[in-house]
């Protein structure tokens, strides 16, 4: 139990997927204009990454490793994750339209989020078992959501400020993201 909590804290804060491992930067910068949109994306990411980690872990343990095909894991994971998101989307549309409309466009968008693949591969590299993979995936996604919601909040404040002309738009967002990344380095002292 203790190790699972450590995995969640570690993947959410210490090895934050965006600010420490630099995965999923594209949606991190692209969808962080509004807090509401980024929170929706965050929820969708939590949903997808948790399921994807579980499936990838099962696939690796019971198909790829016994057959000695470790080296194919990247391709297999891409294939399976893409299909998985599609199926999950169809499933939600049919059975839970409320969740489907809430997640909206973000669900299919996540298929192309490298963070999802990144988590699946890191899990395997760390030699996690099934339960650990699920928790690690969940923690990572929580870290992603935390980062994107924080950046969205910063951006809504930045918009009110009177900035020098050259800094407006993308430059100030990159600076803010960089400062956030430095701030998150502080969590590395949590590592034990």
């Amino acid at each position, binding site marked *: 139990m203790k190790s699972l909590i450590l995995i969640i804290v570690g993947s959410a804060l210490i090895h934050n997927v965006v600010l420490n491992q630099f995965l999923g930067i594209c949606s991190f910068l692209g969808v962080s204009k509004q807090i509401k949109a980024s929170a929706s994306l965050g929820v969708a990411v939590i949903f997808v990454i948790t399921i994807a980690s579980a499936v990838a872990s099962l696939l690796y343990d019971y198909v790829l490793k016994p*057959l000695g*095909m470790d080296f194919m894991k990247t*391709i*297999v994971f891409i*294939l*399976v994750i893409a299909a998985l998101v*599609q199926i999950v989307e*169809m499933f939600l549309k*049919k*059975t839970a339209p409320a969740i489907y409309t809430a997640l909206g466009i973000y669900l299919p968008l996540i298929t192309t989020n490298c963070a999802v693949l990144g988590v699946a591969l890191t899990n395997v590299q760390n030699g996690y078992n099934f339960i650990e993979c699920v928790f690690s995936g969940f923690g990572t996604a929580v870290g992603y959501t935390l980062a994107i919601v924080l950046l969205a909040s910063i951006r809504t404040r930045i918009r009110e400020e009177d900035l020098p002309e050259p800094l407006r738009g993308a430059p100030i967002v990159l600076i803010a993201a960089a400062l956030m990344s430095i701030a998150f380095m502080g969590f590395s002292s949590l590592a034990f």
Partner: protein
Amino acid sequence: MQIIIATTVVLALIGLVVGVGLVYAGKKFHVEVDERETAVRECLPGNNCGACGYAGCDAVAAAIARGEAPVNACPVGGAPVTEKIGAIMGVSAEAQEKKVAFVRCKGSCEVTHNQGNYIGIPDCRAAALSGLNVTDCDYGCLGFGSCVQVCPQHAIKVVDGVAVVDRRKCIGCGLCVKACPKGLIELMPESKHVAVQCSNKDRGPQVKKVCSAGCIGCMLCTRQCEVGAITVTNNLAHVEYESCVQCGKCAEKCPAKVITMPVRVEV
């Protein structure tokens, strides 16, 4: 060699399983989408401006297909889009003319006596909240351009302290109407040009004191109008665009020259 073949076979098998799974899921979880919804969506402009009051073009297309929104729900597309959607929905298009925004104030720096004491955030809404004066006229344009900021087409410009709409660029979305804290902007049919360029509801002498281009409510225009399209309520003239025949007689007689034929302004 063996490992290559094995890998290919396993990967192909995984691909097959995934593909079959997708097809099965597609059948099993198939949701009926109204095909009219897709067709309607294709007719819409796709700006997602939200002027219709729905969350983007997809949402309004769904509402039209369900019959909850009228076929002319999109104010931006105007008549051509309404016609196309009407054809899809099997409804004869209720003709709706394209509308454009019009600023009911003529109080430029020249004609008003600018003795405002407002110093603060250069924004109309902030200035209106402060309770201080920007110009002497309590009704007039503040000139900080809140409307300019919300306009998706950059069709509004503040010229000499008064917002002016470029009717060619205006798409009639009405965002500026909502943005103006003084309620100066209204939507008028694009084909009509006679309009009262003032919103001051004070009595004549009071108006004259603060602005030489204000409506003093003298009623001269109402007598000129042959079709009764112009009325004066609360000391302020207003043109009924539906019945106006655009003869321009009211504009000629107006002593303050506040009834204008708004022409296109180069922005």
